[in-house]
């Protein structure tokens, strides 16, 4: 589905420059995605079940192996894993038996874009109001925010690269806008 959305975005770009596709902007590998809601008293049990540290502070990413959890709210996480990882619901159900939690599969609701390069932060800041300086938004920080008219999840994966999670129907808009902004920041 991500392929369709981004292919559509490519097709919609008007009057592309010679050289066409901006290699700094690429689709992420297919992911499985869950929205996880947990009460405070279940953080360690859930962490043990999935191998992730859910006690990390809000707006932080924790990664273990192929799995990542982005703490988007005080009791809300976005869990990302390769599309082949089918063990999350079962593992959590076993580890949290008898406890309250909510797990919603949103794999097909969103699509991922990876943006890399020395101008990555500036390209996002063209239409995003967050302070993306390394002191204010260090590597490993992740939050929902706003990208022009779209609501996105922004995760800094290295000083010069970001992962964006976008609701599927907004992906053509975000990708097209990033390509347009990229023209201001030659590689």
């Amino acid at each position, binding site marked *: 589905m991500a392929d369709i959305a981004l292919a559509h975005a490519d097709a919609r770009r008007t009057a592309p420059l010679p050289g066409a596709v901006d290699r700094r902007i690429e689709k992420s590998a297919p992911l499985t995605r869950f929205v996880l809601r947990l009460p405070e008293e279940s953080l360690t049990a859930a962490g043990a079940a999935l191998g992730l540290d859910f006690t990390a502070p*809000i707006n932080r990413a924790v990664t273990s192996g192929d799995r990542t959890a982005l703490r988007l*709210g005080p009791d809300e996480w976005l869990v990302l894993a390769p599309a082949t990882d089918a063990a999350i619901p079962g593992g959590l159900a076993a580890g949290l038996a008898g406890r309250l939690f909510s797990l919603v599969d949103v794999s097909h609701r969103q699509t991922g874009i990876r943006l890399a390069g020395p101008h990555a932060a500036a390209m996002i800041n063209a239409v995003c109001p967050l302070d993306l300086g390394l002191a204010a938004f260090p590597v490993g920080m992740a*939050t*929902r*925010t*706003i990208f022009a008219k779209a609501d996105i999840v922004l995760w800094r994966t290295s000083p010069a690269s970001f992962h964006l999670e976008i609701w599927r129907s907004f992906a053509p808009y975000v990708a097209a806008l990033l390509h347009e902004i990229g023209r201001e920041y030659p590689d």
Partner: protein
Amino acid sequence: MLLIPCPYCGERPEIEFSYGGEAHVVRAPANATDAEWTAFLYQRSNARGSYAERWRHAHGCGRFFNARRNTVTDFFEQTYKIGEVPA
């Protein structure tokens, strides 16, 4: 841009937030009179100066919180989580 201190996320840009009206409005009881319902639904103190308001960090942590904002200067005097007593 105006920065609003979210009690969960810290200072964040104003456009990530949405406004939720006056805070601490107590719901009228089920057996309220029409006049009491009208007051609960429609009448607000609309203070000039320090005003208790609900805000939601809609494009952030997604949580509602309370704030005390000066409606003359637009200065946020304090923000606090739902259920907390303001300092």
